[in-house]
């Protein structure tokens, strides 16, 4: 006789979480409706200067975000299999594989993206995404508009880079106006930049709550709010979601509560993209040892710091925001600052099989960050942002268990002087 399994009820979603999901659903739905009306819709890389398309009222969807959603809902397998059966090397980025398969199939059990009429590519996240989008451009025979963000091997965005990126943004405005037959409205552009900056500041405010010990929020929860920050950071509805989250967090602080579902024993920095197919497994494992993810560079990449109305500062911000587009010293400097600010006990490095740009300098990053932070402990695990086949639950669990022990010993040693 089989033993009856009693499942624990799922944690009720907060109002802000429901609002974030609804906003994302709305963005997808509006894109489908715009396409049905005959408007031109675009697919974009996730760290693209959305302000320009938003000013023109264009509907844009984000294949990376879409791939993450498909992976998180455990729907990736048929897409991965399809891509690999159609000349995609197993080695390619799993978001790309899912999307290149989806580009043929154009249907899934998550939100759907309509066939694009144009593509927007920024290479500040990685170089390879240009090649991925070139394949889409070739497949659909549609224009690809690129903003080349030029990897920064120096410790600042040089003037020549800013000038080049600004020229590309100006060209993009011309190209999109020509494509859509619209007229450019500089006042609306200034307004969108202002809204985007407000959202950026609210996003920072949310992330800053994680500096409180113990944290009133679960850091992993921030991954759930990334959708609006990627999709709709130029819209006022995103501010509504973030303000609701802030209100809920203030309430938690007042009542001494937290959305982290356990006693916070350790506060860690999560390096890299989430392992979307195993998000709940990862959280459950971390929770078991009281490990709260209190900082992450990945989510912060959408915290674009520029002066509204100043195109040069927008150009520089997009070039310098991602850890994938900056030199090692700057990556270490930021992490040292965050580790101190967020009272971090250790770093978890996701050795992401899908993302070479994140992992090919990660080992040196581990050593330098640890050294810069007084021997801060760190661990790594093998995973993949969207390909469920490249992750081992057992490996993750064993390493987290050992890591908790390392952090505990260090905390005790520090306490005892």
């Amino acid at each position, binding site marked *: 006789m089989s033993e009856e399994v009693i499942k624990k009820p799922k944690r009720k979603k907060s109002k802000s979480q429901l609002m974030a999901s609804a906003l994302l659903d709305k963005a997808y739905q509006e894109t489908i409706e715009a396409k049905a009306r005959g408007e031109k819709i675009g697919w974009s890389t996730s760290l693209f200067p959305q302000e320009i398309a938003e000013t023109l009222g264009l509907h844009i969807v984000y294949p990376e975000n879409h791939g993450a959603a498909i992976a998180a809902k455990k729907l990736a397998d048929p897409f991965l299999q399809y891509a690999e059966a*159609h*000349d*995609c*090397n197993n*080695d*390619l*980025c799993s978001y*790309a594989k899912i999307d*290149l398969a989806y580009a043929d199939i154009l249907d899934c059990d998550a939100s759907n993206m309509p066939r694009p009429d144009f593509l927007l590519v920024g*290479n500040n996240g*990685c*170089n*390879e995404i*240009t*090649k*991925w989008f*070139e*394949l889409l451009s*070739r497949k659909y025979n549609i224009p690809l508009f*690129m*903003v*080349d963000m*030029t*990897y*920064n*091997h120096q410790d600042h965005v*040089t003037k*020549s*880079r800013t*000038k*080049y990126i600004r*020229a*590309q943004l100006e*060209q993009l405005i011309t190209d999109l106006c020509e494509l859509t037959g619209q007229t450019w409205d500089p006042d609306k552009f200034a307004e969108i930049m202002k809204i985007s900056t407000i959202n950026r500041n609210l996003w920072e405010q949310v992330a800053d709550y994680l500096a409180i010990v113990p944290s009133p929020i679960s850091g992993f929860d921030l991954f759930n709010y990334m959708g609006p920050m990627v999709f709709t950071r130029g819209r006022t509805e995103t501010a509504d979601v973030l303000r609701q989250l802030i209100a809920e967090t203030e309430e938690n602080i007042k009542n001494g509560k937290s959305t982290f579902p356990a006693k916070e024993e350790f506060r860690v920095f999560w390096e890299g993209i989430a392992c979307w197919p195993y998000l709940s497994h990862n959280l459950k494992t971390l929770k078991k040892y009281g490990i709260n993810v209190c900082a992450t560079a990945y989510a912060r990449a959408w915290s674009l710091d520029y002066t509204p109305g100043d195109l040069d500062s927008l150009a520089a911000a997009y070039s310098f925001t991602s850890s*994938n*587009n900056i*030199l*090692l010293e700057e990556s270490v400097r930021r992490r040292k600052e965050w580790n101190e600010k967020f009272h971090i006990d250790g770093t978890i490095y996701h*050795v992401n*099989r899908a993302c*070479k*740009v994140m*992992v*090919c*300098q*990660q*080992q*040196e990053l581990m050593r*330098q960050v640890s050294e810069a932070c007084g021997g801060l402990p760190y661990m790594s695990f093998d995973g993949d942002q969207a390909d469920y086949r490249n992750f081992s639950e057992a490996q993750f669990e064993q390493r987290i268990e050992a890591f908790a022990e390392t952090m505990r010993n260090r905390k005790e040693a520090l306490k005892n002087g």
Partner: protein
Amino acid sequence: MADLHENLQKLRNISHNPKKQLDTYLSDGKQVIGAFPYYTPEVMADAAGIIPMGMWGAQTEFSLAKKYLVPFACPIMQACMELGLQGKYAGVKAVMIPTMCDTLRDVTQDFKTGVKDISTIAYTLPQNRKLAAAKEYLIEELTYVKEQIEKIYGVTITEEAMQKSIAVYNKHNSVMREFAAIANDHLDIITPAVRHSVFKSAWFMSKSEHIAAVEEIINQLKALPVYNFTGHRLILTGITAEPCSLLNILSDNNFAVVGDDVAQEMRQYRTDIPEDTSSLASLAQQWLDRSDPMAHDDHIDRVNLLEKLYKENNADAILVCLMKFCDPEEYEFVAYNSALKEAGIKVLSIDIDQQPNNYDQARTRIETLAELL
């Protein structure tokens, strides 16, 4: 004067043992700079009398490199890190690394940190090449590289010397194109491995020396009657097509290489350095003019390029030398593989690695292709 076979053997020896060549240059009092894959402003070094030497790794086991790179990183970069960490590049004062792919971005940082006695000069080529602003940006970036070379090597690179070196590099391009053409008339002598060593040796010699060596080979080939090759004719495409043990499998199966779109080989020589307002503007314009799959908007579709090479050289098949873990090439493969097959062209893909490999799997596939043809 050496005979043709001695001349070819000399280039073969250099391509097989660049370390010996490096040591010879150093003992002759020359200064050397490393040129990572696969477009660097070598002209600047040449203008300062510094020998640029290609950094293409080697067939080696990866041990020390594991401290910096994951096992699924580009084998060329793993090998370069390995050799750098082992001290095999001792005497090289600096390396130039273009951030042309994601792994190269990171290797600028890994090399800088790991191989401390060699300075790293990183620079970023623009990808949005249609805009005038891209050229302005690149001139600034090249100025940075020039200043770094001047500082590290204690030299002054003059405009006059740059113009002279540009002429040398354009002459070298022309000589290599001529060699590639005449090689097809002598496929009994210019086997795949021999052809490769003529191209690869260019990375480890001053261009003036290489021009002299290849011109002599060309003249000696011209003096011979055209050979009627009746075997199978191949076009190669990829980053590198090596080692020779792999290329010898081609010879064993009666294949000759009659053209290539290989980064280490003909891609280098397709585009000359044009005249412009300054030497740096010329170098910048060369990048903007290059037809290359590593660049966005590569001017010529890879499918068209390969089809053209295939037809012009009466080829029987295209051999894709797919560098393991090379994202740009893997994406490109999706674009051209099915299109070429639909055009009725036979395409075979084999993996290229830098770790010792007996290429048994490649041998079987090449044998099967030979049977098919």
